[in-house]
């Protein structure tokens, strides 16, 4: 790539703030990065794109001093630098905002932000000064009313944890800041605030690296996009001179004509019928899903969608209302009851809630059907391998064999392993919570096609997604929630991003009663 090109608008290129030259990094036999060279200039937002496993995270870890590169070097403002540790990188002004931040649960937001650098009077932490300081930070960075500095870490939502991580990265002198998929847990409102912050950092001359899978965000915030594929640098494009299709082609090395495959569907009998369900977080929710139908649950993060799903699978108690599968009311005392009735659930946090990371793909796929493939409690290993191979093949999980440890797979392949478990189990209703979170474009399209196939085979699907294009592309109907209530229902023909969003952020909290059910 050219390192000192002119900007297309005639302005001279800003000085390179951080330059990577020929960075290579291998983990055992796996080469994560090979000869990657790129630079980030002061006062620009450089988006870093690529499928999962393309090497973005490894590159960020090299930048943050967490990994030492095997080959190549880093130059900060023209000076070669070698960070032995994240602390050294931090001191030099490099920050990486992690996607899944580590938050200390039993201390406040303020203490989490200034962890390790608490303001002190003598040896005593000055709590009042600390809280005031963090409150000022929150206001200054545009997160007012989204975060209270006194909230304990354990009470934070995923979005708030992300904000804490961002505040943390902004302490001290910042020269380069990298965001690793910062918006995956944020609502649109919070994303707006974040973008405002990023623009301000850019204008102050900070070099910003922005990693994301979400195209609209790239086009909204980035000045330039650099694409990685299979650990190699593919190229960069100025955002104003490229289109989504070109970037996707660069990422996957082929054209993705249409992400959504969609066979004509003939919804059959009502399979899942939820009536007036009320839990701690959800109030009076009613909805129906028919066989062969994909129903979407839209809304902002914290709207109660995941909480509803957890209630439907018996993981949290239902205080009022009924859940019926094929007309039979369920008594849900635990996930086992829901499963026996035919409700499967692929949760949002696949690593924490769905996968046995240290076990093989085979173990993970067969987890929900062990009883079925056992005789006198002895697991039929031949059958098990056959089932695992069948679904690994059908979902094109990319792995060396079905014995590969799941923890070593990329995000997309991990998600496909979770889906394989449910395909093997064949529930009547499958609830998917953010099925493509943290999944690359290629795997996304494959997951969409699996959902389409399952519906065509007559499964009833309830899909929770915070990505509007995904909801609109995938679902026959969309039920929108806000504050634990249903605020609207849109058939596919009437659903637009604007209408879903309007319902998701509706001020009026009177629930839309099930007129169109």
């Amino acid at each position, binding site marked *: 790539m050219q390192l000192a090109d002119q900007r297309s608008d005639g302005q001279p290129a800003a000085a390179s703030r951080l330059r990577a030259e020929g960075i290579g990094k291998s983990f055992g036999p796996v080469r994560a990065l090979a000869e990657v060279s790129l630079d980030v200039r002061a006062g620009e937002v450089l988006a870093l794109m690529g499928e999962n496993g393309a090497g973005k995270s490894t590159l960020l870890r090299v930048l943050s001093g967490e990994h030492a590169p095997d080959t190549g070097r880093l130059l900060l403002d023209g000076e070669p630098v070698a960070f032995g540790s994240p602390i050294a990188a931090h001191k030099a002004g490099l920050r990486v905002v992690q996607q899944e931040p580590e938050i200390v649960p039993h201390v406040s937001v303020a203490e989490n932000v200034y962890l390790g650098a608490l303001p002190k009077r003598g040896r005593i932490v000055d709590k009042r000064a600390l809280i005031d300081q963090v409150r000022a930070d929150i206001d200054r960075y545009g997160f007012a009313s989204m975060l209270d500095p006194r909230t304990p870490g354990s009470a934070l939502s995923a979005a708030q944890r992300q904000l804490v991580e961002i505040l943390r990265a902004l302490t001290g002198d910042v020269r380069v800041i990298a965001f690793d998929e910062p918006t995956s847990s944020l609502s649109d409102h919070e994303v707006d605030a974040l973008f405002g912050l990023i623009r301000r950092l850019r204008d102050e001359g900070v070099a910003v690296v922005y990693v994301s899978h979400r195209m609209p965000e790239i086009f909204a915030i980035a000045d330039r996009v650099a694409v990685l594929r299979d650990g190699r640098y593919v190229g960069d494009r100025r955002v104003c001179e490229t289109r989504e299709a070109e970037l996707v082609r660069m990422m996957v090395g082929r054209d993705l004509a249409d992400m959504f495959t969609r066979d004509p569907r003939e919804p059959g009998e009502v399979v899942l019928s939820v009536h007036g369900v009320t839990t701690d977080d959800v109030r009076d929710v009613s909805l129906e899903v028919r066989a062969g139908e994909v129903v979407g649950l839209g809304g902002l993060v914290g709207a109660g969608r995941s909480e509803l799903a957890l209630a439907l699978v018996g993981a949290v108690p239902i205080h009022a209302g009924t859940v019926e599968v094929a007309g039979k009311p369920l008594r849900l005392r635990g996930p*086992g009851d829901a499963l026996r009735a035919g409700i499967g*659930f692929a949760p949002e946090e696949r690593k924490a*809630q769905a996968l046995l990371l240290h*076990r093989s793909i085979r173990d993970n796929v067969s987890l929900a059907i062990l009883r079925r493939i056992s005789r006198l409690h002895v697991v039929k290993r031949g059958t098990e391998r056959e089932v695992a191979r069948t679904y690994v093949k059908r979902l094109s999980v990319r792995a060396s064999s079905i014995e590969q440890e799941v923890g070593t797979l990329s995000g997309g392949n991990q998600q496909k392993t979770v889906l394989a*478990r449910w395909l093997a189990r064949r529930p009547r209703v499958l609830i998917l919570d953010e099925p493509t979170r943290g999944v690359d474009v290629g795997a996304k399209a494959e997951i969409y096609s699996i959902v389409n196939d399952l519906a065509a085979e007559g499964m009833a699907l309830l899909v929770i997604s915070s990505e509007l294009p995904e909801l609109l592309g995938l679902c026959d109907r969309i039920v929108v929630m806000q504050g634990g209530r249903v605020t609207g229902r849109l058939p596919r023909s009437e659903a637009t991003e604007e209408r879903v969003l309007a319902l998701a952020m509706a001020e009026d909290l009177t629930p839309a009663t099930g007129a169109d059910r």
Partner: protein
Amino acid sequence: MTQTESPAAATRPEPGGRPGALRRALDVVGVQNLSLIVALAVLCAVIGSQNSNFFLIENVKTIGTTVAIVGILAVVQTVVMLLGGLDISVGSAAGLTSVVSAMVFTSASSAAFGILVGLAVGIAVGVLNGVVIVYGRVNAVIATLATYSALRGLANLISNGRAQGYTGTDSTFVFIARGSGLGIPILVWVLIIVALLVHLMLRYTDIGRNIYAIGGNPTAARLAGININRYVVGCYLLAGFVAAIAGILLTARTGSGQPTSGSQGLELQSITAAALGGVALQGGKGGISGTVIAVILLGVLQNGLTILNVNSFWQDIAQGALLVVAVVIQQRRRGLRAFGLPR
């Protein structure tokens, strides 16, 4: 990864790659087990070179009978640890059943009845542990620490702190203590049978696989429909049952019911053996083969130090040192990061 002590990884790799025979053998045995076997061989060589009596059949039998009791406890401890728990009460439970079985035997003059009542007591203790942990939502360490103390007290209370009954003339107890089959002492047979059954359960049944799943990721296990409560109670029940067997073996070996002597410290030894054998304290990783080899290793160490006339207090120190070294090596190999670093 070659975490081959788990059933998953121990199965042969997919055909196609055609790994060498050595590689396949290594996959079956596992790096963890292999390092234990090497350590065992070195230890035997060192002790044997100092005192050739070490290799006598009689001495090997002595080692076998010495490790039998702690061995079966280590086996069930492995199961509980795989589940993500810990059972500190196994030693106390063994002491209590030892006393109870001897006292019932004395008053009913029936060895069978004494043994049955002993087993029933063990099962009751296990269920109590399980119920407190599951329904009381008490941390396993705390719950079994409580029963550890309470059961020891109970054993001393009903026995007035003294040895009870005399089983040294009863044919059943004598057979258990000194009998043999096919040249192998009965005590060793008990260990072989218990270890084999548990091994088969863990490796080949859905029950075993679910135990690994619960220890590896309880949320995933629950969402996959596994009734975790039942498994927790079941595993502690098994631990109590086997602790009762240990107590009965203890009664047979010492010729009387012992409230504390002989059983004290068994809980820590069983945990030591399991950890040395590669069972992860956080659950989900490990297997019976590693634990059994570790039990033998500890037995040989103890026996060797005894026949080399080393002060017996050194034995505890050697055991502790071995555990620390083994676990440090394991953690290094797994590439575990320092405290507090993000994974």
